[in-house]
Every structure is written in structure tokens, then in C-alpha cells.
């Protein structure tokens, strides 16, 4: 038999079927319940925001890779994930042009300037959100009630519509658990429905794409600290962006530690920061900044949490 034509490569010769594009598309699939809830509660403008953010993220990535002569990487779906996540963490009435700018900023500045997929230090979608909040703070803090209005919503001032965390922090009004759970509350497009987010998170866990270390240590820390400071931990878990952040943002592979112990410290760190911001900070909500700050600590955490090698002799004295 002729020898020519055989592929000669280094072992292993067998691979898992799970691929990066598959993981990214699974994340998109897992976000579908939250997307659906967003459109259900905030109407078609929410759908428009998703389309604009995903579209501008993908176009930005394609254009930049092309201009720089790099392989076009949009087919790994990571840009689409960034765009979609950004759309889910902005208010429903944000002008579409602002969403587009945020999305472009996410990809061009937060991801591409660092070297593209896998290289960025900060979560691009959250950088996009932080950028929008700094640039158009009014748009970014103008909330709207869901189109399906509920009886409990306080009617005292139609203009000061506020998120449950704002109502809690400044008016001591607590939204009912049921409303928080299904998401009939004011908030960012994709963060209001705990149910929808948990559904997607369960899918990612089932598929093995995310572990429990980061989300559980994150959420657990928030619960413990808010309880310690005399607040309702369940309310703090369900309100605001905690669940979306803990399951879909803090678990972002690129910007969170790869070491198991590092992941726990990272999750705890996120939780501490969220609790501090919510309880004592100038903002009612702190998930975005908490994760971004911990992103900055990721490399350091990894350095100090390298696993013990199998067979590494325990140091005696």
C-alpha cells in the first residue's frame, strides 16, 4: 500500500464534538428565554434593540478583522453573544443608535484592541454597558414598566418609574417575589425575569458549558451579606441584574479565572462588591461594575490559585 496521503499528526487523534462555535451558539440558545421575556414585557422595541446590538457587533468584528487582514472570526458566534448580552443589559427605551454605539465600542475597544477572541481582559458587553452609562446616563437610567401592567405597581408618579432595587433603596417599597420571578418589573431588557434566566442557565449547566463555582459563590455571597445587613436575601437575588450577571456574565470564560479555586474567590469577590454597592454605594445596582472589577483581578487570582499538581509532595515543615 502506498504511504502517501495519510495524515500524520500528533496524538490525540480523537476529539470531543464540543467546539467553541457550538458553545457560543448554545449560549445564544440559553439566552432565548430571557430574550423572549424581554420582548414579552417591553414590546417590539426590545426586539429591535437585540437586532441592532447583535448586528452592529457582528458587522464591527467582520469589518475590523477584514481591515486588519486577520481571519474573519464572526463564525465563532462570539461577537453575536456580546451583542446580544449588551442588548439584554440596557433599558428598553434606550435609543437604538445608542445601542449600536455601545455594541461597536464593545467589540472594537473592549475586545479587538486587546487582540480579539480570548484576549480581552474585561467582559466586552459589560464594558459596552459601562461606556453607555458614562456617556448617556439619562438614557441609561430611564426605566419603563412592562407593557403588561401589574396591580402592585405604585402609581404615584408615572415619570419616576423605577427598578425594584431603586424602589427598595430609596422608597423602601419591595416588589412581590412572584413579580420578580416572572419579570413583570422595570429593568433592563433581559434581566427582569428570574425564571427565564434560570431556564437558560439550567441549559448551560446541563450542557456542561458553565460550572456552578462562579454563579453559586457569587449569588451565595450576595445572599449572605444582604442577610447579615438585615435585608431580604431572596429579594436581592431576584431583583436587578444579579442572576443574569452571575450565570451569563461572570461565567464568561475569557474574563474569569480558569483555576477552580480562583473561580470561587472570583465569585465571592463579585458578590462582596455587589452587596457593598447595593447597600452602601451611590448606585442602586452594582452587578456590572462588580464583575468588571473582578475581571481585572482574574489574572492575579489565577496566579495564586494554581492547582496542586498530582504527585506534588506536600511540603513538610
Amino acid at each position, binding site marked *: 500500500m502506498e504511504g502517501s496521503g*495519510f495524515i500524520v499528526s500528533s496524538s490525540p487523534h480523537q476529539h470531543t464534538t464540543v467546539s467553541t462555535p457550538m458553545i457560543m451558539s448554545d449560549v445564544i440558545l440559553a439566552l432565548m428565554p430571557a430574550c423572549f421575556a424581554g420582548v414579552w414585557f417591553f414590546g417590539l422595541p426590545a426586539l429591535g434593540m437585540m437586532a441592532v446590538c447583535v448586528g452592529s457587533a457582528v458587522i464591527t468584528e467582520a469589518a475590523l478583522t477584514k481591515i486588519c487582514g486577520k481571519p474573519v472570526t464572526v463564525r465563532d458566534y462570539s461577537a453575536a453573544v456580546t451583542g446580544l448580552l449588551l442588548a439584554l443589559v440596557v433599558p428598553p427605551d434606550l435609543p437604538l443608535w445608542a445601542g449600536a454605539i455601545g455594541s461597536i465600542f464593545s467589540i472594537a475597544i473592549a475586545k479587538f484592541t486587546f487582540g480579539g477572541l480570548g484576549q480581552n481582559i474585561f467582559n466586552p458587553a459589560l464594558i459596552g454597558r459601562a461606556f453607555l452609562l458614562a456617556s448617556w446616563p439619562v438614557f441609561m437610567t430611564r426605566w419603563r414598566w412592562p407593557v403588561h401592567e401589574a396591580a402592585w405597581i405604585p402609581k404615584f408618579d408615572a415619570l419616576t418609574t423605577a427598578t425594584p432595587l431603586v424602589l427598595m433603596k430609596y422608597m423602601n417599597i419591595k416588589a412581590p417575589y412572584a413579580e420578580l420571578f416572572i419579570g413583570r418589573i422595570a429593568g433592563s431588557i433581559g434581566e427582569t425575569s428570574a425564571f427565564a434566566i434560570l431556564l437558560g442557565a439550567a441549559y448551560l449547566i446541563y450542557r456542561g458549558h458553565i460550572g456552578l463555582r462562579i454563579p453559586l459563590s457569587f449569588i451565595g455571597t450576595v445572599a449572605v451579606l444582604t442577610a447579615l445587613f438585615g435585608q431580604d436575601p431572596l429579594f436581592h437575588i431576584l431583583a436587578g441584574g444579579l442572576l443574569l450577571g452571575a450565570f451569563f456574565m461572570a461565567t464568561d470564560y475569557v474574563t474569569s479565572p480558569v483555576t477552580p479555586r480562583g473561580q470561587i474567590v472570583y465569585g465571592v469577590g463579585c458578590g462582596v462588591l455587589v452587596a457593598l454597592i447595593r447597600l452602601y454605594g451611590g448606585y442602586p445596582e452594582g452587578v456590572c461594575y462588580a464583575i468588571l472589577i473582578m475581571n481585572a483581578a482574574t489574572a492575579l487570582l489565577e496566579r495564586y490559585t494554581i492547582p496542586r499538581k498530582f504527585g506534588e509532595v506536600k511540603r513538610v515543615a
Partner: protein
Amino acid sequence: MSEGGVFENMAIRTFKGGVHPSYNKDATYAKPIRSMPSPGKVVIPLHQHTGAPCEPIVKAGDEVKIGQKIGDSKARLTSPIHASVSGKVKAVAKHAQSSGVDGLSIVIESDGLDTWDESVKPRDSVDRLGPDKLIGILREAGIVGLGGAAFPTYFKLTPPQGKAFDTLLLNGAECEPYLSADHRLMVERPADVVAGARLLMKAIGVERAVIGIENNKPDAISALMEAVEGDDSIKIVPLGVKYPQGAEKQLIWAILGREVPSGGLPVDVGVVVNNVGTAVAVKEAVIDGMPLVRRVVTVTGSCVREPANLMVPIGTLVSDIIEVCGGTRIPPKKVIIGGPMMGIAQYTTEIPVTKGTSGILLLSEKEVAGDEPIACIRCGRCVEACPMNLMPLWIAGYAEAARFDESERLGALDCIECGCCSFICPSRRRLVQGIRLAKAEIRARRNAKRG
């Protein structure tokens, strides 16, 4: 750790990390081992084991018989080689070999008679043989580890000064996908496996042996349980089905809960590990007086017309074996010696089976379809999968950046090259390849330093 508990608790034992590749053993695991008719010629490399290569002790034109020693060395670590067919030595020449490097080999043309050398005869008074005698017999018989590493068995059985064995482990995990040679041996020749185990126990002076078998081979487990019935010194332990369950350090951990220290050997925790196939070869060498001239090879992969477990003479060319298996159904895209996780891809089928050849895989385009590597997304799957608890992404990453000192600091030399990290990487990064580069570079630098 209580040693007694190891056997009282029948919970399935395993190790941390690892992966679950598709096992692809269906084509051969139920097929009895058949003996291949002697091929027209064999090519027996002088170097097919760990240690020093042999010097030829025959020359072109010599007549040889099966079992006759044709190569040996005076080195401390080596293993002699023997003729596997009877006939005439055609040449002592360089020949392509599965390691990828052409090696000096003895080419024998078979006379088709399969005449055995007079030295090959059953040994009587086996019971009176002491450890030194047994170890000497194994050396002379050219017994090496048949699991793939081909480490000379006699050498492994002699503990270094100041160290001692307390347990013999037999590795029947066969965790590499596709392979079923060990499985068949355990099912068909359990008495020989056990006889080999007893001889090995005697050779190293231990009272206890454990045979670890992955739990997906219930027939092998029950066959061996039956074979050891009434003998409390040999235990059969079912192991979790996970790759690399059969890796030496992982096997020891799973069965005994002992951790072989970094850079150390199983003897450091009082253990020696041998493959079940090696145990059969030990039995044949000691009791039947037969040197290692043949072995079981699994020939499979979707391109093979009739996948089989074949007993083949050492030195048989892969191309001849493929013919015996009915040829190819479709043209193979990749030819692998060994299993798909750790085996070596070949550029030709004109290479001989050596003592370490456990499998021949002919994989189709579909089976080898691999995506090009893309950027690491730092998912951490390689970290979770590494059975040595290393950071494959960093070790390989530093190797790619030629910062080998960093790779070394992160434990590159502890890597057992099982391939879990590359297997699991969703970005298809060539992690083991990078780590191998680091290891080679680190070793080269150390050697250079030594002068």
C-alpha cells in the same frame, strides 16, 4: 489511609479529571483472538523498547528458528530480541518503524515451516525458581511492557536500593478507545493472566496483587474473578470507565489511594504496575519457556474490512496484517499504531509490529475530521480534564512563546501526554503537542547543562 478499606469497599474506583471519549470498541471486543498465519517476512527492529538498542547477533544469510535470540546488548537497561518466524536472515538494515525514526532491523524471510528453536520448551520445576532466577528468565525472554511503553519488565521488577514493593498491580483497564486486545486476553486466557500475576508476585516478593479492570468489561471481570477463586492474595477491582484510567499513576491512585510523587516511580509507593498482556507473556516465558515473539494486536477502524484481534509474530508488517483482515473497505486517511489518544500516526503501512504495538487503526476521513485550531477562550476544560492537575493551556501557551522555563515551572515534565487536554479543547488547540515541545526543550537544556 486505611489499606484494608481498599478491598472492602466495592464502590467503583477512579481518579480526578479525565475525559469520556467514544470508545468505539464494538467492532472487535467480542471477537476471539485468532492467530495470524506466519507472514512471508518479518522486520524486527533492534530497538523496540525503552533503553539501549540491541546489537545484532545474526547476519545476513544465517538460518534462524522461532524463539532464537537474534539481538542483545550489554547495557544495564535493554531487552533482547528473538526471531518470530523460522527462515533466513535477509538483511540487517535500516527500516521504517512506527516510532517515525528509521531503525536498524533484522529482516527475516520465512521458510513457512514455523520451526521452533530447541531452547523453547516448557520449564519444569518452575516452583523452585527464586526471584533472581525469575527476573533473569524474563530478561532473557525479552519481556517488556506490552501496554505500549515497552519498558523492560525485568528492570521494573528490581527495586532500587532502599526501596521495596508491597503490591503488584495488573493493568486491565484498557482505557484507550478502539483497543480490545487486553480485553480478549482476560476473557479467553484468565488462567494465564493469573499465572503470570503469581510469577510476578514471586519475582518481587509480595503477598498481594490487584487486577484493575474498567467496569465496561464485565465478562473480563467475571472470568478473572473465577480464575482467582479461593486465592485471597489476588483481588479483582472494577474501575470507573474514564480515560486515562489505565495510566500508571491514575491506576495506582484509583486502586490504592497512593500518589506517586512528582518525578518519581510507582516503586516510590511500593507498587509495580504491569499490563495484563505482559502477565500472559510472563507466564509463557517462565512456564512455556517461550520468549516474546508474538503479541495480540487489535486491528480496527472503519476502513478495515474485517476488524480483528490478531495474535501476530513480532516484526509482521502492518500491510500484511491489513491483508489478513480482508484489506481496506475504504481508503484510510490516518493510520495509527496504538490507540487514538496516545498512538502514533504513520506515513506508511510498511512498518513492523513491535513489542509495544497494541493496536493498528485505519481511520477514515470522517473519523479523523478535525477543525483547525482557533483562539483559546480560556474555558478551563483542559484544567478540569488534566489527570495530573496541570494547567495545559499555560504550559502549551508558554511553549508556543518559547518561554520553556515557565512551562517547566508549571510542571511540564509531570505531563503524561494522555491527550485529555487536546481531546477536550473546544478550540481544537494542539495542547499536548505544545507540551511535548516544552518537555523536549526542557530535557535538551538539562542535558546541555550537564555537558
